[in-house]
């Protein structure tokens, strides 16, 4: 592995970590709402969340490029705040990745929240636990496997992202050149040895991460207190 390779690996990990953190912060309330609501717009929101699953990354990338560009609404907004423009920046990739990986975080969380029996929350309510207390001391611990799945899938899916990054990234070392783009460039330049080095590493990473996830989630849920 060369120094440039390590830069790429580090950048990819940072992108995936930032994306996962943002997604957990945004996705948790969204998933909670989706799991509990009886609102008529639930199907609408559910569909919007699932869109990145079915849309090709090139579609997402194309629209992001236009939206975040100088004429696009998002681009004009960021410029008016003095933030400059998002394409070709790390922050821009985080925005793109959050959209792209959204369903991979929201859906497991939503399923976990839906699986919490209503009685558990009612019992907590009769013990005079407020809504926040109920959420943090009952819902969160019970939804732990869902959080594990959401975190791992959000991170891993962002590592595996390619099309969106290719469209809005500009392949800048240390800022937007992530692993998938580096592999693509090595293959195009017929540097197959370098491509193998990175590609084999990613295959190994994907397998280990998924194996760990499924092995951990297979364990029966602890009956009582939270284990770490």
């Amino acid at each position: 592995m060369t120094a440039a390779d390590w830069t790429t690996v580090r950048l990819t990990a940072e992108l995936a970590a930032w994306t996962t953190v943002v997604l957990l912060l945004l996705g948790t309330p969204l998933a909670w709402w989706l799991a509990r609501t009886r609102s008529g717009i639930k199907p609408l929101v559910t569909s919007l969340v699932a869109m990145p699953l079915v849309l090709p990354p090139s579609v997402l990338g194309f629209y992001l490029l236009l939206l975040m560009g100088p004429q696009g609404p998002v681009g004009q907004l960021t410029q008016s705040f003095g933030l400059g423009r998002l394409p070709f920046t790390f922050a821009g990739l985080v925005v793109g990745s959050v959209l792209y990986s959204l369903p991979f975080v929201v859906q497991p969380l939503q399923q976990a929240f839906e699986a919490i029996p209503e009685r558990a929350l009612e019992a907590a309510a009769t013990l005079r636990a407020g809504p926040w207390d109920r959420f943090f001391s009952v819902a969160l611990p019970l939804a732990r496997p869902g959080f594990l799945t959401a975190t791992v899938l959000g991170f891993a899916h962002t590592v595996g992202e390619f099309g969106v990054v290719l469209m809005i990234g500009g392949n800048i070392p240390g800022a937007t050149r992530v692993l998938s783009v580096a592999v693509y460039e090595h293959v195009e330049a017929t540097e197959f040895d370098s491509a193998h080095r990175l590609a084999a590493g990613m295959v190994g990473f994907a397998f280990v991460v998924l194996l760990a996830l499924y092995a951990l989630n297979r364990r029966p849920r602890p009956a009582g207190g939270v284990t770490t």
Partner: protein
Amino acid sequence: MRPRLPLALALCIALLVSAQPVRADTVLVAVAANFVGPFRQIAEAFTVATGHVVQASPGPTGKFYAQIATGGAPFEVLLAADSATPRRLLAEGHAVPGTAFTYAVGQLVLWSATPGVVDDQGAVLADPGRIQRLAIANPKVAPYGAAALEVLKSRGVADRWASRLVTGDSVAQAHQFVFTGNAELGFVALSQVAVPGRPAAGSWWAVPQSLYGEIRQDAVLLRAGAQRPAARALLQFLQSPSARQVIARHGYALPAP
């Protein structure tokens, strides 16, 4: 005395054969991303003239090399964005010897989607000023990108722009970055901005040939097309006066016939 009947029969067959193609065939062509526009017109004319159908896959030449050399891609003809790739395919036995020729010579332009940004001397390169992004094709894999770097170096301004460069996967993507305004400037192919009937908005500078090595775009018959008359016919058609006219109109220089 010669028998008359066989002669008449042979004549009839010959007439039938020459009047319509033996069999309408499909040619699979891998075509450099920058040449898609003119090639579409040429392919249409080819279909009208011969009845053969062309299936064109546009893409970066480096990717085509990888697909042809390692993946056994079914392409019968390659219209590359360079001359190195066809040469390499020939050397490695993936292409048919004696079939390579230069079909077009690429012209590099410095382009901005905003009028007045680029002057006709390229003086804008001397001082980046408020320009944040200069888009080029990836110099590692795309000849237009390598040529762009050469221009920056021959002007002695490569360092000034190094931190402002964004690279597209191909010259098509570099064009896309400038077109959407995400990069204020970009080195693209003249063929992308001088589209007949649809000239690009903005301002551009046709970079003099003296500032970069000639971008010779070569075509070659691939192994998969060795036994395919339609593929050979297409390569021949590409060198015809009508095809050359289309190529020149799209902003390419032509090699001597």
